[in-house]
């Protein structure tokens, strides 16, 4: 247990020093938020709520997906390549402890990203809603980020390709999932595609909460399905990799 916390602490310390994390993963959603608020105007109506709140959710989701899919994948790929993971396996830190530490790190980072995006939106665009609503949306985005961590783990197994693949998946999923442009503004065909994107299913329940509608269980189910697929694939490759491991 202590071993896990020790790793968690070190991981957070590494992130705090990671300039790339602050400029890209955290910076991009915030800059996008300012740009889109200026272009569209904060009080445009959309999907039963206001643009400033709607896009706040979009950007929080965008940031969380970036940190899980992109940052985590690249970091895992580097750790595997550098022999660090192998080295850790010789310590009393169990693989469960390692995985748990990574998940906790991701949850901590997601918490931080959502908090910052919400904070910026509240102060720059005066997003208002009852405290309970803030709490619910926050909680959903936070917990709902876990499937993307699993996707990050999966992409992290791609070795040298992880960096490119991670960035690509992160941007494409965000775009197709309607995190940049609301899907109502997308062509019909892309709207159909969006329905099946984990990113859309991640943000949609939060948008529903904004509009005071109940969470759609279809979204939760689809997201859970993706979580299963991603972690299943990762576990499968891990086992396969072990059998073929050289020296």
């Amino acid at each position, binding site marked *: 247990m202590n071993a896990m916390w020790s790793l968690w602490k070190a991981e957070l*310390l590494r992130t705090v020093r990671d300039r790339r994390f602050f400029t890209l993963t955290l910076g991009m959603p915030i800059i996008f938020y300012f740009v889109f608020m200026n272009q569209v105007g904060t009080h445009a109506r959309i999907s039963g709520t206001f643009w400033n709140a709607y896009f706040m959710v979009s950007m929080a989701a965008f940031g969380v997906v970036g940190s899980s899919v992109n940052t985590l994948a690249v970091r895992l790929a580097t750790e595997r390549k550098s022999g660090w993971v*192998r080295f850790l396996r*010789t310590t009393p830190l169990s693989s469960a402890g390692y995985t748990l530490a990574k998940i906790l790190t991701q949850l901590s980072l997601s918490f931080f990203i959502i908090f910052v995006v919400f904070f910026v939106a509240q102060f720059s665009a005066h997003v208002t809603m009852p405290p309970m609503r803030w709490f619910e949306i926050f909680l959903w985005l936070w917990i709902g980020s876990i499937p993307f961590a699993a996707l990050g783990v999966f992409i992290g197994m791609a070795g040298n390709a992880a960096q490119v693949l991670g960035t690509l998946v992160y941007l494409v999923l965000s775009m197709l999932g309607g995190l940049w442009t609301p899907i109502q503004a997308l062509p019909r065909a892309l709207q159909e595609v969006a329905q099946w994107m984990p990113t859309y299913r991640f943000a949609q329940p939060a948008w529903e909460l904004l509009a005071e509608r109940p969470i759609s269980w279809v979204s939760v189910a689809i997201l859970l399905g993706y979580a299963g697929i991603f972690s299943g694939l990762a576990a499968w490759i891990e086992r396969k990799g072990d059998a073929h*491991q050289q*020296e």
Partner: protein
Amino acid sequence: MKDVTKQFGQKTAVRDVTMKIAKGSAVALLGPNGAGKTTSIAMMLGLIRPTRGVVTLFGGDPLASEQHAHIGVMLQGVSVPDRLTVVETIQLFRGFYKKPLAIDRLLTAAGLEEDARVMANRLSGGKMRRLQFALALAGNPEVLFLDEPTVGMDVTARRHFWDELRRFIASGKTLLLTTHDLQEADLVADRVIVMNKGRIIADAAPESIKMQFAGRQISFVAGVHLDLQKLTKLPDVIEIKTAGRQVTIRTNNSDGLLRTLIMEQWEISDIQVTGGGLEEAFMRLTTETEGTFV
């Protein structure tokens, strides 16, 4: 390890190896690259499973992380994560163990006191190796597994490293290290296991291994009055062979012995020094030997 074989696809890295490392012993696993040393260690640590045979660590399954509480490990080809300082990296490892050594003690052991605040992944190759030594010691282990520990270290660092290792052994703890350098093995080990092509080809005390592998040869034609018995009393002489008046001495210090022979005006002529250093003799042995001898 009992009757252990490990295959990677078509290639057999370790072939029917049986060995037992007793508590409190200091064992060097010696052999050229590709002899199966690293693979053997990886199996003892539970990093890979043997294809056949049984490997136990403290009498248990090496794969179980609980078995790793009292070991310290240095592997080859590991680099530490970025954006952590030397101290933070060591602290991270200290956090993995119940009774870690004090941070100052670890920095001293690695000789990294002055680099404590340096980003760990920016260390030079030799210092990186020393940091990994500190990480291996972090949990105050009973057993150390060191895979080619001195690669990249300079002379001073090596000396410091061997001093630390001797202190470690002196406190009654167990050491297993791999090396391709017989001289290194001789520095700390009380037992040397020589591996080649996945097999154990020798297992003995370093002195007797040295007798068999080491040294250059000095050969000369002895004068008629030369007393061969006296030759054996000279320092650094390992073995003497004679063929008529042709004498061949095996030595681990050809320069010194040669100097003695000449300064003391021994009656010799046609002097020849042959054979490379330990390395060459050892290479010759490992490429030629097929059977097992002790």
